[in-house]
Structure formats: C-alpha cells, structure tokens
C-alpha cells in the first residue's frame, strides 16, 4: 500500500471534517457526533498505520504537495516529512485528539452551539497534526497560527463568564506576539537561505551561522517558547487552561504545548544544530528549571482545580525542556519520554477534573469534598494520575523523572558543571512539591467530608469514563514496561533527533547532507538505565502482600464481618471530634500546608506581583525575554 499519502490525508481530513461539521452537524447531534468520531478515528488509524514503516523499518516518509519536487537542489513546494521524532509526536497527537473527541460527546452535551465547538476542535487537531508532520517551516508557522486561533476561540467558548473572555484575550495577545517573533525569524531565515524547507535549511545552515541566522534563531526560540508556555510566557496558559472546556484543556496540555516543544527540538537540534554548544545547553536547561520551579510553587497556591492542573502542566513542560536541554542521548530519551508521559497523566487528570466539574458544577477546591464515595471510579483514575505525575514508583512519571535525574547527574559529572547538580536537586524538590499539591487536591476534592450541596452527586457516564480508563492503563503500562517503550519508540526518535542525514537526504536527494558536511554520530543502543526493574519490584510487592494477607486471614476468621460501615446512632462510626458531636468539618485545600506557606511568604508575595493579571505586563515579559535571548545568543554564538 502506498502510505506516503496518509499524513496529508489525515491533516486535510481533519480540516474537511471541521467544514462538514459546521455545514451538516450544527443542528443534529447524531450527524455531528458521527462525523467527529469518524474523522478522528480515520486520522488516528491512518497515522498509526505509519508506526510500522517509521519505527520498525526505520523509514522516513516524505510527500511533496502537488508533486513539486526540488528543482536543482532548491525546494520550492511544501513538503511533508515524518521521521521518527515527528512520528513520536504524531502518536501523542492522534491519541489525544481521539480520546478528547470521545470525551467531548458526553461532556459537552449540555452546551449550545456545539457545531462551532467541534469545528474549532477539529481545526485545532488538524493544525497540531499538520505542525508535527510538515517539513516546511512556513507551513509550520501557518499551522501554529491556526492552532492559536482555534485555541483562543475554544478558550472563549463558554463565554457566559467574563473571566473566560479575559483569558482568551490574554492568550491571543501573548500568542500573537510569539507568532510575530516566529514569523520574523522565518523571514530572516529565508533572507539568509532562500528556502523554507527544514531539511534544506539544515544543510545550508550547518557550520554557517551569520548574525542574521542567529537573530532568526533567537526570535524563533522565543516564538516556540511562547507556544510551549515556558516561564516567562506561562501566565496566559494558566488562564486559558482554566477557562477552556475541560476536554480542550486536555488537548492544550497534551498536544498544544507539546507542539511548541516539538518546534523547539526541531529548531535547535535539526535546523540550527546549536545544541552541542554548552552555553546554549545551559540556557535551555535554565529555562526548564525556572519553568518547573515557578510552575509548581504557583500550583501550590491555587484554589481552582483546573488552574492548579494548568500550573502543573507548565511545571512538567519545564522537566521536558530541562531534559532536552541536556542534549545527551539519555537526556533526549528521557525528555521525550516525559513529554509522552505528561500527555498521558495530565490528560487523565484534566479528564478527572472535567468529571468533577460535570458532576458537581464547580471546580473550586474549597467548595468540594468527599467525592470518593460518590464517584469511586473517577477517584481511582485520579489517584493513578496523581501518583504518576508526582513520580511514585511504579507509575510512568517515575520512570521518566528517574531517567531525567540520571541524565542530569551524568551531564554534571561529565562536564564538571555544578549547575546541573543544582538543576537535579531542583527537579527532585519540584517533584516532592508536585506530590504535595496533589495530596492537597486528593484531600480537598475526593476525601474528607461531603458538603451538603454535593449530596446528590453521581458518577459520570461510561463514555466519559472510557478515555479515563484508557489513559490510566497507559500510565501504568508505560511505567511498568518502560523498557519496551524506550526501545521501540524513544530510541528511534532520539536517533532521528541527532542523526539528520537521512532526514535531509530523503527530502533533498541522496548526498545533500554529505555535501554540506553533516555526518552521523554513533549512537549506542545501550541507554544506561538498568537499575530500575518495575516488574521485579511488583512481583516482590505482590508476593509479600499475599503473605501478609494470608497471615491476616489465618489470624482471625471473622475479620470480614467486623469491617462494617453501618451508621449507628451512638456515634461509634462517626469521626472523632474531640469528644464533641461531630459536625461538618472538612479540611479544604486552602487549609493545608500552613507551615510551608508561612515560610515562603515573601516568595509568594513576589510571585503574586509577577502574575498581575495585566495583559500589558505579560506581553512586556515576553518582549523582554526575547530581547534577553537575542543578546545572549549573540554573545554566545558569534
């Protein structure tokens, strides 16, 4: 079968679907749901068919739009090119959009104007898919812009509340400042190289950095930074994730900010190949560390479920950027793994938040409580997600964080740079703080006592639980069989990040890379992660647990009967309340971590000023950061 057409069919299919939904599906919900499910399933199926040729056979899939192949070594047409790195992000994208589509059907059913919602949703999906498939840098910019529009419009979709519109406006302004930087960078690159194809750009720019291309690098780095919401561009992200419908928040944190990360990797590793310069590595790792730290500390201070998750999203992107910035083979593997894991567990957590919002109508941590008795299945999914993101073994978040720590330490001892040790310590502390803030959510939302307003809460319908179960399973599976994921997905993706000769040759013809002096580096199949055996740990755990259980059962026959939860008048089964009659006394989210917040009061006050809510301040931060990056890259690279 000729599968080279599949990427473009998928991307165009999603855009076509957006059109069809608007035309035929704005009235009838059955037609609408059929179109959306059909289109997303087809796109996912077609793209997943490419897993075999790309990952197993090691091919690179290229496609020239309108068959405009390069003429005399100059790429004129728009080319789609999917190597293992692109394919890795493609898998994340199609998985997320499919699950989000399934989840939306029930979650959004109470809203009006759903035709518009699905139109925007399919446009968002199509643009992200196009972004990771394309080999043309201007096409990438166009996809980024479509992505930003769709995302902004979806943020403002539930426009009953003013805050949602405000979030959309901030997102739009900061996003467009970022897109402006990206476009300026692309234009400067075109000025230098007279081509827009990334493969050709890579071959021309190799060892050939001029002031113009360095300026382009700085501008585009900032532009993609805005799209991946690293600090200091993160403030609109928190607002947008909070305001968008939850199925869209999941898409935002799952793939929209990954698109920025993908762009950054493509830019730094493939197009410019500047990552072997140690100062650039330090710059990227510094961005990552600051992002993860500010993200998690801000999350600790939040009172809204979705806003808290949004800040965690920022923080986890910090991990990914840090790991990618290390630029060792281990680092890139762990960064990509964490990106995938983040898509899984953060998607899961957003879906749980959506379930809570769907059932109770609020996401305020201080108004919720005791939902685990009403929504037991959601609680299990949430706990899996929370344990994954806080890196408890044997879930997937642990596997990737552990890899990141190993890579950071490795980098520190090979370069002798104490900065990486600092980054490592920071990453560990951030991980504990992540755990702390999820303990806060667990206590505030799922355990504790139920407020009177929430007595009638019910479990969410099956169609909403299905994506949650799939994601939970993937979280556990990726954690336990991390070697399988590593060898089959991450290693090929990492190889294609470092060895780009075949990427260039496939697009521009054999020998182009060699002519411009780009050579492959040897990559060891061994990645050096051998000291964590989740399977053995689990087997031991289950064995010992069984033994303890058997001892328990032998010890007392009637134990099963004693464990009853019947309510009795004498208060034997009421909670202890200092001998008083127990009343509703829920320890809510804002009551927790008193000592910690007190110790960090000064820091939190500064951070409050930093997140002022004023759109001018946010854009000023973006512009200043861009200026700093330009100055830094000029000092380092010229």
């Amino acid at each position, binding site marked *: 079968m000729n599968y080279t057409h599949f990427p473009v069919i998928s991307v165009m299919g999603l855009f076509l679907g957006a059109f069809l939904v608007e035309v035929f599906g704005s009235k009838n919900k059955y037609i609408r749901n059929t179109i959306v499910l059909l289109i997303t399933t087809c796109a996912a199926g077609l793209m997943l068919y490419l897993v075999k040729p790309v990952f197993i056979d090691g091919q690179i899939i290229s496609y020239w739009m309108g068959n405009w192949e390069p*003429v*005399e070594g100059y790429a004129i047409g728009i080319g789609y090119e999917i190597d293992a790195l692109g394919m890795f992000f493609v898998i994340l994208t199609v998985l997320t959009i499919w699950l989000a589509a399934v989840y939306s059907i029930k979650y959004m059913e109470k809203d009006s104007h759903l035709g518009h919602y699905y139109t925007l949703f399919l446009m968002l999906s199509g643009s992200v898919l196009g972004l990771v498939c394309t080999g043309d840098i*201007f096409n990438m910019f*166009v996809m980024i*812009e479509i992505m930003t*529009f769709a995302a*902004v*419009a979806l943020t*403002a979709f539930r*426009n009953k*509340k*003013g*805050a949602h*519109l*405000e*979030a*959309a*406006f*901030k997102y*739009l*302004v900061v996003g*467009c*400042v970022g897109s*402006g930087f990206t*476009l*300026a960078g692309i*234009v400067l690159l*075109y*000025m230098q190289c*007279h081509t*827009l194809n990334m493969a050709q750009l890579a071959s021309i720019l190799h060892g050939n950095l001029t002031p113009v291309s360095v300026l382009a690098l700085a501008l585009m780095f900032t532009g993609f930074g805005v799209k991946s919401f690293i600090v200091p561009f993160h403030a609109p992200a*928190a*607002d947008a994730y*909070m*305001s968008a419908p939850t199925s869209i928040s999941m898409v935002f944190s799952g793939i929209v900010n990954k698109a920025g990360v993908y762009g950054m990797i493509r830019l730094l590793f493939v197009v410019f190949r500047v990552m072997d310069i140690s100062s650039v590595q330090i710059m990227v790792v510094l961005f990552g560390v600051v992002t993860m730290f500010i993200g998690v500390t*801000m999350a600790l*201070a939040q009172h809204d479920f979705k806003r808290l998750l949004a800040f965690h999203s920022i923080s986890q992107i910090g991990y990914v950027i840090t790991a990618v910035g290390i630029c060792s083979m281990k680092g890139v593997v762990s960064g990509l793994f964490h990106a995938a894991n983040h898509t899984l567990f953060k998607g899961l957590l957003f879906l749980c938040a959506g379930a809570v919002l769907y059932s109770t109508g609020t996401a305020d941590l201080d108004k919720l409580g005791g939902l685990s008795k009403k929504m037991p299945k959601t609680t299990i999914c949430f706990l899996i997600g929370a344990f994954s993101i806080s890196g408890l073994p044997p879930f997937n978040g642990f596997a990737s964080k552990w890899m990141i720590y190993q890579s950071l330490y490795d980098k520190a001892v090979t370069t002798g740079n104490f900065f990486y040790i600092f980054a490592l310590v920071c990453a560990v502390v951030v991980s504990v703080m992540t755990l702390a803030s999820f303990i806060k959510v667990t206590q505030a939302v799922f355990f504790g006592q139920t407020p009177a307003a929430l007595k009638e809460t019910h479990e969410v319908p099956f169609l909403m639980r299905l994506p949650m179960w799939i994601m939970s399973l993937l979280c556990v599976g990726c954690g336990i069989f991390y070697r399988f994921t590593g060898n089959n997905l991450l290693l090929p993706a990492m190889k294609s990040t470092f060895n780009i000769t075949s990427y260039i040759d496939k697009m521009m013809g054999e020998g182009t890379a060699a002519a411009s002096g780009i050579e492959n580096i040897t990559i060891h199949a061994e990645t050096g992660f051998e000291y964590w055996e989740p399977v053995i740990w689990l087997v031991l755990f289950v064995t010992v647990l069984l033994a303890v259980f058997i001892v328990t059962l032998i010890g007392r026959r009637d134990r099963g009967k004693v464990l009853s939860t019947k309510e009795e008048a004498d208060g034997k089964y009421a909670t202890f309340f200092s001998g008083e009659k127990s009343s509703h006394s829920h320890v809510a989210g804002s009551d927790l971590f008193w000592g910690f917040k007190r110790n960090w009061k000064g820091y939190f006050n500064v*951070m*409050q000023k930093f*997140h*002022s*809510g*004023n*759109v*001018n301040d946010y*854009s*000023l931060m973006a*512009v200043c950061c861009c200026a700093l990056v330009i100055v830094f890259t000029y000092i380092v690279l010229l």
Partner: protein
Amino acid sequence: MIFNYITSVLLIVLGLYTVCAKRNLIKIVLGLGITDYGINMLIVSIGYNYGGTAPIYAQDLFNVGNSTAFVDPVPQALTLTSIVISACVDAMALALVIMVNKRYKSIDANEIRRLKG
C-alpha cells in the same frame, strides 16, 4: 532598500511598544496589527529586487548569474498568507474586545484582571 528595513523594524518596535504600554484593549489590538504590518513589510523587502520584473516575464528563470532579473515570488505569497492571518487575528481580537466590554463594562487592561496569581 535599507530604508525599507529601517521602517519595518520601526513598525515592529512601535507595535510591540503599543502592546506593552497601552492600557486600552483596542489599542493593544492595533499594536498587534502594526507589528504584523512591520513583519509583512520586512517580507516584501526581502524578496524585492530593484528593477526586477514578475517571474513570468523573466527570460532565463534558472540562470543563477541573472538573479536580479525577476522579483522573488515566494515572499509575496508569504505576505499574502500573513496578511490573511493578521486579518483573522484582528477580527477575532476585536470580537473578544466587544464581548469583554459587555461583561466588564470596561476596555481598560488594568480592570480586566480577574484571573491573576
């Protein structure tokens, strides 16, 4: 030619200054527009060759030595795309400003900050 570049950089800086310094939301949207015009001007300037003609009139398209013979068409295509996109940005931003004004009864950026911290 250098005049074009100076003007486009000035436009970009002016636009960014407007976005960062003006409290009025409409002015912020205008600032975004000005930035985009600056970038568009940069694109067109890059492709332009003094005394060049449209590519279909150029005699020898693939003669490398004769590169001044025609104006590079690619940047012009890019500019068109970029103009369309910035028109979308402006339309959407203005629509949002109208809605924000309905809800907040204000278009001052200092008052539209319910989401903070």
